[in-house]
């Protein structure tokens, strides 16, 4: 699969209105869970949505959507499930087999996952980026026509430090930051009160610090991982759950943010 060359396609993802990257500096903040549930929440608004799992080393989409590896020769990509169009390295590689690749190969694979599937007409393509600021992230930020990035963090300072690095990477390559999502914000107690085991207000603090919108808080709940592990994300399985409400609010906020700002579109071609 050839890597996408800069400028090779005049409209690299024709038919896709908005490409949203979901990123975090740190691993383990629940970025894949946020991506999957955000994509489903956007779909609940009647939008045509795709989800691309760009985590080459640790893809999560196959598990979270109850899919495993598939026969590449017989399966048309992207795979459709719960109304979303899905693409992941996990469809192609056995989950027990480690992908041990150097950077250029990763960049090539990420480019192929994004540019090769016939996505068709989509209102939103959500890209679940791997954690960090390495080859996969840079390739996508530089070559994909990203409308904007959503940064996921936990409230704790240790997560905020790395989230700042993710923010800087996007600023460096001129990708607008749509805002910060704070995941695992609080635990809702039966009496209606909230417990903040990882600290409080970190996401809002980071958003204020870098001057971007704070998109919302997602609570911790064991139902989230239970649903994800069972192959049906919580927004789909329990749309009336408080966590699903938080995701639906997040989707609405993201849509509002996209409507507020002019995307600038692709850079103009040069007349030589």
């Amino acid at each position, binding site marked *: 699969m050839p890597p996408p060359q*800069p*400028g090779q396609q005049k409209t690299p993802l024709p038919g896709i209105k908005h490409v949203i990257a979901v990123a975090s500096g740190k691993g383990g903040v629940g970025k894949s869970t946020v991506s999957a549930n955000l994509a489903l929440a956007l779909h609940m608004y009647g939008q045509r949505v795709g989800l691309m799992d760009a985590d080459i080393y640790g893809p999560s989409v196959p598990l979270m959507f109850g899919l495993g590896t598939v026969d590449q020769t017989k399966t048309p990509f992207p795979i459709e499930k719960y109304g979303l169009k899905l693409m992941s390295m996990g469809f192609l590689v056995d989950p027990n087999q480690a992908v041990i690749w150097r950077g250029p190969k990763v960049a090539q694979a990420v480019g192929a996952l994004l540019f090769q599937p016939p996505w068709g007409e989509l209102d939103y393509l959500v890209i679940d980026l791997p954690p960090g600021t390495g080859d996969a992230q840079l390739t996508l930020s530089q070559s994909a026509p*990203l409308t904007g990035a959503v940064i996921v963090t936990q409230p704790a300072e240790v997560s905020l430090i790395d989230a700042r690095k993710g923010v800087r990477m996007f600023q460096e390559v001129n990708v607008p930051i749509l805002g910060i999502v704070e995941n695992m914000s609080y635990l809702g107690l039966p009496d209606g009160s909230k417990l903040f085991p990882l600290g409080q207000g970190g996401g809002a603090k980071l958003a204020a610090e870098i001057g971007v919108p704070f998109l919302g808080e997602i609570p911790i709940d064991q139902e989230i991982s239970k649903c994800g592990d069972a192959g049906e994300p919580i927004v789909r399985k329990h749309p009336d759950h408080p966590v699903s409400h938080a995701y639906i609010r997040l989707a609405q906020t993201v849509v509002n943010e996209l409507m507020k700002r002019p995307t*600038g579109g692709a*850079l*103009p*071609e040069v*007349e*030589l």
Partner: protein
Amino acid sequence: MTTDDPRPVSLRREGDGLRIDWADGISTFVTWRTLRKECPCATCTDERAKPPNPFRVLSAQEVAAGPPAPLKMAPVGQYAYQIAWNDGHSTGIYTLAALRKLSEPTS
């Protein structure tokens, strides 16, 4: 580079250089020679840091190429352009900020 930096509205060849009209109303011009000389790729940046070598032997492609001219200039994401030159070099990615800095305002 930030999202607040000016974006180009149009870019076109004009004589021996590149004319850029920017969204903030400024029009700038830069010669191909300047752009080639200031190529931001790692190899060229490294070369510029060394003392000039008057005895450097030009490659056959460089000799055949003549004055620098672009064969292709393509957008990279939302932040830069990559130029493929007639001397075979094509790894330089010119950010919008770099293009603005290297070019001279003419209006």
